């Protein structure tokens, strides 16, 4: 039994806006084991990135974690000060952002930007040691060593994204968060980057949190997954189990709305309506307005949301279990 690296319990996070408080993350709990890959999937605005940002406490200034705990190797992160957090970011948890390839500083060489991150965490390393380390990282992600002395504009999108992965690995993190790392890339490049991430994860024994809206990518990359809707996790379990035996109405729709190039060509189902506003108090099931067959009690919003274990290691929102 591998040990738990990251444990998130009842995490609640909201953004304070003029219109009111937006509850972006609502009562999210999950565990990440050593060497495991965990997928977070859901449509835009469902809170995937907000969860990732809360883990690193990199959220915007108007975001507040109202309750819950995030434990990295039994170390509580929520109560840490900014100074203490700086030690954990990149060394404990690192992140590959969405569109991160555009986040390089255009006037500083790639190698120097990675060295900067290493210097922060290992101030006693010599410049040569750091360069050796970067070369090793470039070998892992499949880049030539000479890229170190190039500027970001000299690289293609795929190469920049590989370099970002090398940057994320530069301080030997325990947990790597990949937030839609391939969204801006072409299918062929996406395939290469996905293979690279899987390889790196296996090689270094990393725990991976993979965030995507593309359920096909999640199917390939992860062993466990959670489906998010309107800020909360509605279904969680083994990836294979969720794909073969989805229980939540939203998961079912998500699976039926994804086109595939294998198997019979089938009619896809569309998901009508829009996700609910998360401003103010939210009562009852958030999915019931879009649900194809909500029960009466669900429509009256008399059921509370919350995960229950429907089968071993397969958690589903209780509202939907009672519906069916």
């Amino acid at each position, binding site marked *: 039994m591998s040990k738990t690296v990251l444990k998130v319990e009842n995490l609640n996070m909201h953004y304070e806006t003029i219109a009111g408080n937006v509850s972006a993350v609502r009562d999210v709990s999950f565990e990440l084991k050593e060497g495991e890959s965990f997928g977070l999937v859901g*449509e*835009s605005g469902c809170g995937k990135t907000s969860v990732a940002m809360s883990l690193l406490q990199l959220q915007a200034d108007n975001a507040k974690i109202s309750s819950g705990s995030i434990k990295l190797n039994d170390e509580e992160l929520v109560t840490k000060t900014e100074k203490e957090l700086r030690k954990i970011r990149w060394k404990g948890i690192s992140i590959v952002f969405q569109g991160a390839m555009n986040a390089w500083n255009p006037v500083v060489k790639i190698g120097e930007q990675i060295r900067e991150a290493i210097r922060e965490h290992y101030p006693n390393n010599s410049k040569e040691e750091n360069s050796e380390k970067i070369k090793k990282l470039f070998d892992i992600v499949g880049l030539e060593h000479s890229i170190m002395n190039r500027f970001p504009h000299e690289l293609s999108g795929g190469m920049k994204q590989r370099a970002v992965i090398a940057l994320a690995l530069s301080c030997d993190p325990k947990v790597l968060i990949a937030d839609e790392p391939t969204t801006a890339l*072409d*299918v*062929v490049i*996406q*395939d290469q980057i*996905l293979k690279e991430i899987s390889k790196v994860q296996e090689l270094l024994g990393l725990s991976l949190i993979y965030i995507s*809206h*593309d*359920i*096909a*990518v999640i*199917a*390939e990359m992860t062993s466990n997954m959670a489906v998010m809707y309107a800020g909360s996790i509605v279904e969680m379990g083994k*990836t*294979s189990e969720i*794909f*073969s035996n989805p229980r939540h109405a939203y998961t079912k*729709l*998500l*699976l039926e*709305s*994804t*086109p*595939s*190039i*294998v*198997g019979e*060509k089938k009619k*896809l*189902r*569309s*998901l*009508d309506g*829009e996700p609910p506003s998360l401003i103010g108090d939210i009562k009852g099931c958030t999915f019931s307005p879009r649900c194809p067959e909500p029960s009466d009690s669900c429509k009256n919003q008399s059921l509370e949301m919350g995960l229950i274990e429907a089968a071993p290691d397969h958690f589903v929102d209780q509202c939907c279990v009672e519906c069916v």
Partner: protein
Amino acid sequence: MKKNVIEVKNLEKYFEVNSGFLNRNKSIVKAVDNISFDIPLGESLGLVGQSGCGKTTTARSLCLLDQKTNGEVKFYNTETQEMDDIDNFDDANLKKFRRNIQMIFQDPYESLNPRWTIKDIILEPLNIHNIGTLNDREEAVKEILTTVGLTPPENYMPRYPHELSGGQRQRVSIARTLVMKPKFVVCDEPTSMLDVSIRISIMDLMLNLAKDLEVSYLYITHDLAVARYMCNRIAVMFNGKIVEIAETEELLKNPIHPYTKRLISSIPVPDPQYQRQEYELNYDELDEIIKNNPDDDMVDIGGNHYIATHDVKDSLY
């Protein structure tokens, strides 16, 4: 024999690139290099390939947004039922041609004028082509908004694009395109900016409209799974050339060209049990075809399945 809505023969679009001191080094980029295809009336062709392979340039040349360098494009004339060469059009005919060929762009956030109301946006093509009376035009706007699922239309007409979600905006672009009742619509990745949940409803909408209004699509995408859902035939483009073109299911089940195989093998499959085949570069099948047909650019290997025979060994890796 079914009539074609568009026939493209040896289309070429070159760009001149200047570089060096005082731009004295001139070189030519062959963005679209000698491609040919036909689309039968009411059918849809998917144009699939990597970014930068020339998909959008092809589309722009067909719509006459860019002047083509070489080649022949013939378009179905709804009145005479003949094929007209678009090079022979005078101004009046060109305007008529533009009524029948329309384009849907990738980004619904940038392709709608932010200062115009939805009504103005959809009215504009009707005004330009001077169709019907003012009342007719307003009726047409209401009708098309209802068709694309923005109901009741009165609620949407006075709104501005920023008040709508991405899916609704893309519906407005589709409405603007189809209000002219075109025969042929070029769709440049119309769903790639949209969220998964909305994507299918837009794709279904387009499929239904194609059936009802007898529209043909040239559907540009880099996602083969989307192309499979939308199109009767698929053309695979690589480095400015079409390398393989066949019926959708035939192409996916029986790809011949190494680039097609590679493209197919890199599409993720939404099934954790499914093991994707590892892509292996293998020229044997292609070499065999080239050897047997040394003179042809495109070879029909049976069942309307065409393979390009030009040498790709230097560019493919």
